[in-house]
């Protein structure tokens, strides 16, 4: 990977109004007012700002005798190895992902099946869905009880279907919430059966007592 330092920038755009400001005017401790929009700013610049890296070259070096060659382009010299499978790759096949460098095969295999956590952009929370499906109909209660025959099994389905599904990326699976939701789902079913029994046997019970 060919990297060469470019010249340091002499200004930055105000994040609020886009006006060019001198980097020296921004302090980490003290707030500075932007002359354009008058908003107060403070913060800091990082080494990558002062010494920006040029994008890696898309032109791969031709391999000579004795050079390690790219797995996908045997005519190109390998510059890196895939952090996942270890295949040698040239600059054309290098797929940087954060601090990791992957080959095109590993990247494409990780895209669909959520095998690479760095590529996950959305997660459905089955445990939260179970809990909500269990709780909300019970809160609505009396109005909703005939529908418990639908919402109860739906809650149980959500809980069981999502049991092994990945949960929140930073928090992980919250199975206690799914268990709570399952319990509420069974309660809904219990209430529905009890209500149905009460209606069908009301006359008989009235006669008995």
């Amino acid at each position: 990977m060919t990297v060469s330092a470019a010249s340091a920038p002499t200004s930055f755009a105000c994040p609020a109004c886009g006006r060019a400001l001198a980097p020296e005017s921004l302090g980490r401790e003290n707030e500075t007012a932007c002359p354009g929009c008058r908003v107060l700013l403070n913060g800091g610049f990082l080494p990558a700002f002062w010494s920006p890296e040029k994008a890696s070259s898309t032109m791969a070096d031709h391999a000579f005798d004795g050079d390690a060659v790219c797995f996908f382009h045997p005519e190109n010299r390998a510059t890196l190895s895939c952090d996942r499978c270890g295949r040698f790759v040239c600059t054309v096949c290098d797929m940087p992902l954060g601090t990791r460098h992957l080959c095109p095969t590993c990247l494409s295999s990780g895209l669909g099946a959520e095998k690479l956590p760095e590529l996950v952009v959305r997660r459905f929370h089955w445990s939260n869905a179970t809990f909500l499906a269990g709780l909300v109909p019970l809160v609505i209660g009396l109005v909703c009880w005939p529908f418990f025959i639908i919402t109860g099994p739906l809650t149980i389905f959500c809980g069981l279907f999502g049991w092994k599904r990945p949960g929140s990326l930073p928090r992980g699976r919250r199975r206690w919430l799914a268990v709570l939701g399952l319990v509420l789902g069974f309660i809904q079913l219990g209430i529905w059966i009890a209500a149905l029994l009460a209606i069908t046997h009301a006359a008989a019970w009235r006669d008995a007592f």
Partner: protein
Amino acid sequence: MNSPTTYRRLPGRGLSWAGFARLWLAEDHLLEANSLLISERYRRFFFKDVTALVIQRTKVRFAWNIVHGILGGGGALLAGALWWGGASASEDELRVTLWVLAGIVGAGAAVFLILLFLNILLGPTCVCHLQTSTAGWHALAAPTRLRPAQLLLARLIPLIEAVQAAGRSPDIESTKDTNEEQPVGL
């Protein structure tokens, strides 16, 4: 290599129409998680790409203070007027009705006054902006208060500086030996 990334929670949170936002710290990136009841959306900012972190003070707290102040203060005045009207009413039925109304309006006003107090207590509001080398400025959904934002800045800048200073050796010779020990496949 394939072990799940561990995340540490960072100070501050944000609440908007898009959901509840939090920032999480990983070894090499910052994760913004925006959750809305049953789904969560993520944005990642890799430390090697971050060029600047800026806190912009906003007037959101001031605006909410006005809203809460008007609703809380106005509600309290209305509740007082209703109470006074009830006390001076001659009929028992009217008196009870006005007192009940005063109680309901007073409770609503109390909620807004508590929100006003909390809003003042939480401190000034802000937006955190993060600049990347490739895509310019990104407004982070959290934190939205100045104190946690400054804590975040103090915690993140040294970390990012350390990562950017260390860099990553692109030389294949340095990775050859370690590749033999790495698990192959997914």
